[in-house]
């Protein structure tokens, strides 16, 4: 039970990072982006590539930072991967979504995002193989925090949680303290009024993809660090991340953070009563529950 709670918080932090970008893009561009979770895969694999590259350049970089399995090279690779994934998100928007936006309605975008997800996922599979990959082959033993109730925590998990929370705090400071943050919130509230006030909408869209992609990359690496990396990572995470945005209310960044933790906790607590094979269905139950009780989520507002 306690173990499930702790694991739930950890998974929750990863889902939150993914959900922030998704909720921003969904709110601004008015479409459910089913390819968002593939950005996590792109991030995870990009970090894998650069991790290997830096490790090969200088052997000292391949050393793990005790007590983690995280190496110096991977920590630099995370930052590069965040930047690269952000750029890929912008590129995908330029290449596909922008053109579909110009041609058709919002729902064509949803179709297109499914197609994009399909392409990215399988190209990653073709490049990196279908078998799971790990950042480190070293076995890092979990630390027994307590025996009764039994609780195991890996140092990597603690790092992941701290890093995820740190990223969210930085984002919060940016949103609440900078002109950019005000502009972003203004666009989210009322795009036309924001434009009248001199905010460049297309630049804001690029920035949202950059931020969303960057956060997704971090989430992907953290997921790979605590589980494993495989090409279907996006397929497995897309529904939990959507559930997080719906719980929080589409468009609410703080809602997405809270929603991520709620979905992570609920999914892991559900394992107490359900066999683990059923866990992919839990996010759907959460979505149904939210739609029945509070259709617009915790912080969402009614909008058509």
């Amino acid at each position, binding site marked *: 039970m306690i173990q499930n709670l702790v694991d739930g918080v950890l998974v929750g932090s990863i889902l939150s990072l993914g959900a922030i970008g998704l909720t921003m893009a*969904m709110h601004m561009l*008015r*479409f*459910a982006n*089913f390819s968002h979770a593939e950005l996590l895969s792109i991030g995870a694999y990009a970090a894998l590539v650069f991790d290997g590259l830096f490790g090969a350049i200088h052997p000292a970089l391949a050393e793990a930072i005790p007590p983690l399995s995280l190496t110096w090279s991977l920590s630099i690779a995370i930052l590069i991967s965040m930047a690269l994934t952000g750029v890929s998100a912008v590129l995908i928007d330029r290449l*596909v979504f922008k*053109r*579909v936006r110009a*041609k*058709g*309605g*919002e*729902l*064509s975008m*949803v*179709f*297109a995002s*499914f*197609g*994009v*997800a*399909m*392409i990215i*996922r*399988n*190209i990653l*599979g*073709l490049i990196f193989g*279908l078998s799971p990959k790990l950042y480190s082959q070293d076995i890092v033993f979990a630390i027994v925090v307590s025996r009764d109730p039994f609780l195991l925590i890996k140092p990597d998990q603690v790092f992941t949680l701290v890093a995820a929370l740190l990223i969210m705090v930085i984002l919060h400071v940016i949103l609440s303290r900078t002109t950019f943050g005000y502009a972003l919130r203004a666009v989210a509230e009322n795009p036309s009024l924001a434009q009248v006030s001199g905010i460049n909408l297309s630049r804001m869209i690029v920035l949202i993809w950059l931020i969303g992609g960057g956060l997704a990359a971090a989430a992907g690496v953290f997921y790979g660090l605590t589980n494993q990396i495989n090409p279907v990572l996006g*397929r497995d995470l*897309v*529904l939990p991340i*959507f*559930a997080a945005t*719906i719980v929080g209310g*589409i468009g609410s960044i703080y809602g997405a953070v809270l929603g991520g933790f709620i979905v992570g906790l609920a999914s892991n607590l559900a394992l107490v009563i359900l*066999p683990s*094979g*059923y*866990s*992919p*269905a839990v*996010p*759907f*139950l959460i*979505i*149904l529950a939210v*739609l*029945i009780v509070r*259709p*617009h989520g915790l912080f969402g507002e009614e*909008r*058509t």
Partner: protein
Amino acid sequence: MIGVISYLVFFATVASILSIAVLGLNLQWGNTGLFNGGVVAFFGAGAYGTLILGGTPQAGQMGGFELPYLIALLGGMVISGIVAWVVGLLTLRLRHDYLAIATFGVAVAFETVMRNSDWLGGAQGIRGFERPLRDALGNGFSYNLAFLAFVLVVLIGIYLFLERLIASPFGRLLRAIREDETAARSLGKSPSRIRLTAFVAGSVIMGLAGGLYATFYAFISPQDVLPILTFQIWAMLIVGGAGNNKGAVMGTFLIWAAWTASGWALSRFAPMDVQLYTGSIQFVLIGLVIVGMLMWRPQGLFPEKLVVSQSAKDK
């Protein structure tokens, strides 16, 4: 020669069954503008329903009610309809992306439950279904030919029904809601109720396709309700032309031919070490087809015919 013909019969049967599902999706997406991200769930509900209601009892499994075939098929459709009604009731009042996410979720949940519940067949799927009229027709080529004829009759029946439906006042109402919900509401129509009707009707048609599919193979397993089937069905509709029933059927045969041909070509000509990845290559191709169509020809090969209503023509 007989090999080629029997393969063509097999191909035509599967393509016709899928056409029925695509027609169901066309009612939802093409005519009403409803995004169904979980076609497989409704297809699968019909398939499982038909086999459970019409099959012979199996140890440790629910079902085996041995109902007469047509009643089992109808029962499968009803089950699809109930699933659609629940999902639709919860989501159709909300912003459209909720329906997309919820239907996607329903498909994931459906596959997960079927895979893990041993009393519903589990990962092994449901067997022990006696194909109707097997005693009279045998199990060979003549049976498949007769079954193709049956599927074609159903397909034509659904096609004519939908053509009549969209030409009727109800069909006009669907398009009115798709084009301008507020205007439809101002004329005293209830968009959410009409949308729910269309959504359930489309899902029931998908359930019918699923029931026929399960009858054809006398077997259904979670492996048959993977998300890829949803993509294939969409690709068929988008390529054919959303809103056009003829396009939906043509698109189905075209995409299904391309899919099977690409699978065959990859397994025949690709080097051994690539064989493992033929699935991935096919998925990339179908993704490119969907994205490419949306970018360059969103109206499909057979665009929807724009209907001008009578009164406007008179002026």
